[in-house]
């Protein structure tokens, strides 16, 4: 996984609650291809109107947000399907950090596995931060510093955010999740051996007779 470096970029507001992964990366022939163009999936339904022309009102169609690196969302962002394309699609257009009121469980995990920083701000901080992002309207960049756990706004004010030490380290160092687990390969083997004795029906699965 690519390490999360300090990030400076435009913050795009999408302040709706319950934005689900079917909206972030809708099912489509493109999504079902072996090598999807994830940028094409990104909010495909919301980017275009029913006559298939781009919706100029949609935040990511507005010129100043085409280079956004930070997505600012509402409650329960990423609910619904566990599809990881809902993280790869924002990544494909350059998003590396999502600030939300809250995240769906699997979506947050999918972010962490891809080096995308998920930030949840305290409600009283979030309200002012969101208002600032709307007011700035993409005219100036925000800086996210994971080392010191702080977002610096264009007016110089800063907002602190919390993240577990382990998640912070994993992002900063770009740790390989599978590699971390494989350090426990002996534990896994021992567990299998013990379970094979205690619950053989789970460990020794035999195909049914033909």
């Amino acid at each position, binding site marked *: 996984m690519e390490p999360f470096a300090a990030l400076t970029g435009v913050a795009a507001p999408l*302040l*709706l*609650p*319950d934005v*689900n992964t*079917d*909206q972030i990366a*809708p*099912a489509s*022939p493109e999504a*079902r*291809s*072996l090598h999807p163009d994830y940028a094409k999936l990104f909010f495909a*339904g919301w980017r275009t109107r*029913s006559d298939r022309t781009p919706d100029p009102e949609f935040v990511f169609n507005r010129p100043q947000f085409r280079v956004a690196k930070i997505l600012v969302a*509402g*409650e*329960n962002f990423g*609910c*619904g*399907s*566990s*599809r*990881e394309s809902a*993280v790869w699609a924002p990544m494909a257009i350059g998003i590396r950090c999502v600030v939300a009121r*809250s995240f*769906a*469980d*699997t979506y947050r*995990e*999918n972010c962490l*596995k*891809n080096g995308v920083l998920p930030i949840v701000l305290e409600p009283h901080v979030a309200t002012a931060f969101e208002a600032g992002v709307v007011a700035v309207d993409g005219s100036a960049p925000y800086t996210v510093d994971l080392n010191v756990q702080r977002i610096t706004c264009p007016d110089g004010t800063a907002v602190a955010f919390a993240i*577990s030490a*382990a*998640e912070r*380290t*994993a992002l900063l160092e770009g740790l390989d*999740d*599978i590699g*971390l*687990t*494989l*350090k*426990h*390969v002996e*534990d*896994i083997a021992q*567990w*299998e051996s013990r*379970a094979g004795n205690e*619950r*053989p*029906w*789970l*460990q020794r*699965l035999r*195909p*049914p007779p033909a």
Partner: protein
Amino acid sequence: MPQTLAEKIWDSHVVGRRIDGKELLYMDRHVMHELHAPRAMRRLGEAKRTVRRPDLTFGVLDHAVATVPGRDANSSADGAPLAKAMREGADRFGFRLFDIDEPEQGIAHVVAPELGMVMPGATHACPDSHACTVGGLGALAFACGTSELEHVLATQVIALTRPKQMRIRLDGRLGAGVTAKDVILHLIGRFGIAGARGHIVEFAGTVARDLSIEGRLTLCNMAIEMGARTGLVAPDEKTFAWLTGRPWAPSGAAWEAVVNAGAALTSDDDAHFDCDVIVDCNALEPQVTWGTDPSHVVGVNEPLPDPDAAGGDRADAMRRAYDYMGLQPGMMLAGQPVHRVFIGSCTNARLEDLEDAAAIVRGRHVPDGVRALVVPGSTAVKKQAEAAGLDAVFRAAGFEWHESGCSMCAGANGDAAVPGQRCLSTSNRNFEGRQGPGVRTHLVSPAMAAAAAVTGTIVDARVLARAGA
């Protein structure tokens, strides 16, 4: 120390604790599908890793298969390369793929239970949010993304932080014509789509006990729509009877050991739940969603809610949903014209669901202007239904009778409606565009979907059931 059922299963599967504090949880079974597995296998190969336990790993073709009668692996232009990648992966890594032309083919969450691959007290991984379905058999199931799928392939464990514990006690008895689908839709409406976030939900109480296994699978299927990490129902005699003799279930002395171990698979009387609620189901009526997430739901005889009463962000979301759905607060759903009906998906396409629907359909006919589709949850369900003559009932009534797959649940592979159409669907998500751009989805039980199909309107199926054919 007293424990919940989920804690017991969790603790008996902890392999170790990683340096980042996450617990490594062993996955007894891993069932993956063709939409996500090819990428995970490709990355596994690139990292020069292999599948640790191909004997506990299975592949299905469900998300991207065509369901038209007479289909094969090439009938779906999108699905053909994915199916090919699954076959190559099965050959390379040595897991069993239930291919499109095999009798075991079907939707992952339907196939795993019916093959007896899911055991009470076991863990189960599937890279799909509806993995929680198999909790209906008392297993602890985990959904995941593609990176986690690769992780399970390489290690047979998932690294997780322990979720909180929630219990929903479903008191009372369901009235005639009220089903597990109505219960879970009502719960999502009551607690919201994030109401169980961060929790494992145990469904308990008389209603959970009285439900058939098929009903429990439906109930647990939509635990994710409340935001739950997973859901489950404690196993009982019904569970073991249902699993007895299934192809991949143990037999003989091994099966007796499974049943004996099952006695301990309950939450202790004084177990602690972070959230413990009782819901009276006596007065529950058939539910219909009206909006664009599963919490936008009412009883079929209730007026649609007022966004102003909800307040805040959610009121805006409700207004947006009304706009998308072409409905207004205060209206009744009953009487709304219906264009499409879909009976299928991992939620409601088991044999009992098709029987419920057929009981309404028998002797009636789909009117002009309505297209109705039945897509059995698995090839085995399809064969059982055909042996019972259900396909003839549906066909005689003007329904299309298809092969198994995810189909219109996600508007896949040509099984989609057109913009503005109102679709009554037995699936699990009524999100904007889920069944095709601009399609207005209403989630309902199989009987309610069948009633809509044969009347061309949203209607209380109990009225038709009482009237008979």
